[in-house]
C-alpha cells in the first residue's frame, strides 16, 4: 500500500502531537514526586558521609531520613573567600540543599557557591562538604565529612555517573570509602596536602600513612579523578575553615 506524501506528513504530525502531549503530561504529573525523590537522595548522600549515619540510613523510611536530616544538619552557603552568604547575585534567598554542585562546577571557581552542611550530634561536630569532579568516563561527586579541626576525615560518600562497574564504580562501595576514615588532610606545618589514593591495591600499611589510601586495582584513572576532586575542593573550602571555624574555636577557647 503506497500512501500519499500528504497522508504521511499528517500522520506523523498527529502522532508527534499525541506522543509529545502524553510525555509532557506525565512529566507534569510526576514532576513534584521526582523532585522530592531527588531531594531525599541528596539528603541521604549528605548524611551518608558520616559512617554511623550511613548504617542507620539503610533501615530508615523517607520521613525518618528527612526528620533525622533536619535534626542533625544545619546548612549554609559560602563563597570562595569563605564568607557565608545568604542571597545570590539577584537577591534571591539561597538554600544550601538546592545549590546544584554540577552547575557550579562549570563556573570559574571564584563565582561558585560552596554549601557547607554542619553535622552535630552529642558534641561531635563535623563539616560535610560537597565535592565534584571528573572520573574516567563521566562525572564523579562526593560528600566529605571533616572534623572541626579541618584535618581529620570522619567519612566520605561518593557516587558516579558512568564509571566501569567492578572497577571505578567501586568508589560507591563501603569498603573503598571506609579507607578514608581517620585520614588527615593537613601536613605537619598546617599546609593542605589532601589525601591521595595510590596506584595498585593491597599496598602494605607502610606505604600508606595519614595522607594516602590504598588504591583500586584497574581503576587508577578514577582514583586520580577522586584525588583531584578532593584536592581542589578542600582547597576551595580552606578559606571557610580559616575564617569561620578556627576563629570560632579561638573565641571559645579564650572565654
Amino acid at each position, binding site marked *: 500500500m503506497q*500512501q500519499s506524501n500528504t497522508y504521511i506528513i499528517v*500522520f506523523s504530525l498527529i*502522532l*508527534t502531537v499525541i*506522543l509529545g502531549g502524553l510525555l509532557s503530561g506525565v512529566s507534569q504529573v*510526576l514532576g513534584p514526586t*521526582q523532585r522530592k525523590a531527588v531531594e531525599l*537522595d541528596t539528603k541521604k548522600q549528605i548524611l551518608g558521609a558520616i559512617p554511623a549515619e550511613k548504617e542507620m540510613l539503610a533501615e530508615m523510611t523517607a520521613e525518618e531520613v528527612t526528620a533525622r536530616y533536619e535534626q542533625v544538619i544545619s546548612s549554609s552557603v559560602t563563597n570562595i573567600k569563605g564568607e557565608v552568604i545568604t542571597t545570590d547575585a539577584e537577591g534571591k534567598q539561597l538554600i544550601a540543599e538546592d545549590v546544584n554542585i554540577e552547575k557550579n562546577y562549570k563556573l570559574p571557581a571564584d563565582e561558585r557557591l560552596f554549601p557547607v552542611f554542619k553535622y552535630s550530634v552529642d558534641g561531635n561536630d563535623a563539616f560535610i562538604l560537597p565535592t565534584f569532579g571528573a572520573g574516567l568516563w563521566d562525572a564523579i561527586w562526593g560528600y566529605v565529612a571533616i572534623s572541626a579541626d579541618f584535618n581529620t576525615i570522619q567519612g566520605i560518600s561518593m557516587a558516579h555517573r558512568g564509571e566501569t*562497574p*567492578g572497577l571505578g564504580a567501586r568508589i560507591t562501595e563501603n569498603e573503598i570509602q571506609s579507607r578514608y576514615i581517620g585520614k588527615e588532610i593537613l601536613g605537619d606545618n598546617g599546609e593542605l596536602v589532601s589525601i591521595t589514593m595510590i596506584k595498585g591495591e593491597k599496598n602494605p600499611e607502610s606505604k600508606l600513612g595519614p595522607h594516602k589510601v590504598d588504591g583500586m586495582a584497574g581503576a587508577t584513572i578514577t582514583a586520580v579523578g577522586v584525588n583531584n576532586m578532593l584536592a581542589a575542593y578542600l582547597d576551595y573550602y580552606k578559606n571557610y575553615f580559616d575564617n569561620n571555624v578556627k576563629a570560632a574555636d579561638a573565641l571559645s577557647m579564650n572565654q
Partner: protein
Amino acid sequence: MSTETLEAPVKEKEGLLSKRRKKFVTDPLNDDNPITIQVLGICSALAVTTQMKPTLVMALSVIFVMIFSNLAISLLRNAIPTRVRIIVQLAIVATLVTLVNEVLKAYAFDMYKELSVFIGLIITNCIVMGRLEAFALGNKPYDSVLDGLGSGLGYSWIILLVAFFREIWGSGKVFGYPVFEAIGIENFATNGLMVSPVGAFIVLGFIIWIQRSKTGYVEH
C-alpha cells in the same frame, strides 16, 4: 528472523486462550527464546545482570514496553504509512521507555540511578523492534499483546537466571540477601569474574549450551 503470517482461517469464536494463542506466550519461553535461540537483546542481558533486584525491574520494564508497543502498533497497523513505519515504531517505543524511566525516577529513585541508562537502551533492544516488525504489524491487537507478553517473559526468565548465578557467585547473595552467611558459611570466596560482563557471557553460554543440547536446535 522468521516472518510470521498468521492468516490461518480464523474460526468464528476463538477461546481467549486457545491452543494457537497459548503458543504465542509459550513459544518464546523455550523453543523460540529471544535471547538463547534468536540471540537478540544480548547487550542488556550482559549489562544489568550483576544483581537480581535491578534485573527484575529491567525485566518488568521490558515486558511492559513489549506489551504496550505491540498493542499500539497492532491497533495502528492499518493506518501506519509503510514508508515511515520504522520511525513510527521507534517513536512509540521511545515514548513507552521514557514513561517507564519517569515513573522509576518518581517512585523508585535508587533503581532509577542504577538502571537509568539501561532503561533508555530498551529502545535499542532488538527484541522489541523485532516483534513489532515481525508480528504486531500483521496481527490483531489481542494476539499481539500475547506475543509481547511471551517474548517479554522469554527475555525475563533468561536474564533472571543469569543474574541469579552472577549474584550468588559474584557476591554470595540472592536478591541482596547474603545466603551463605545465613547458612553459616562466613568466608565464602566470591568470584570477581562473575561481577564483570565476562561472567555474563560465560553463564549465558552455559545456558544456551544446555538448552540447545536439550531442544536439539542448530544454527543454519
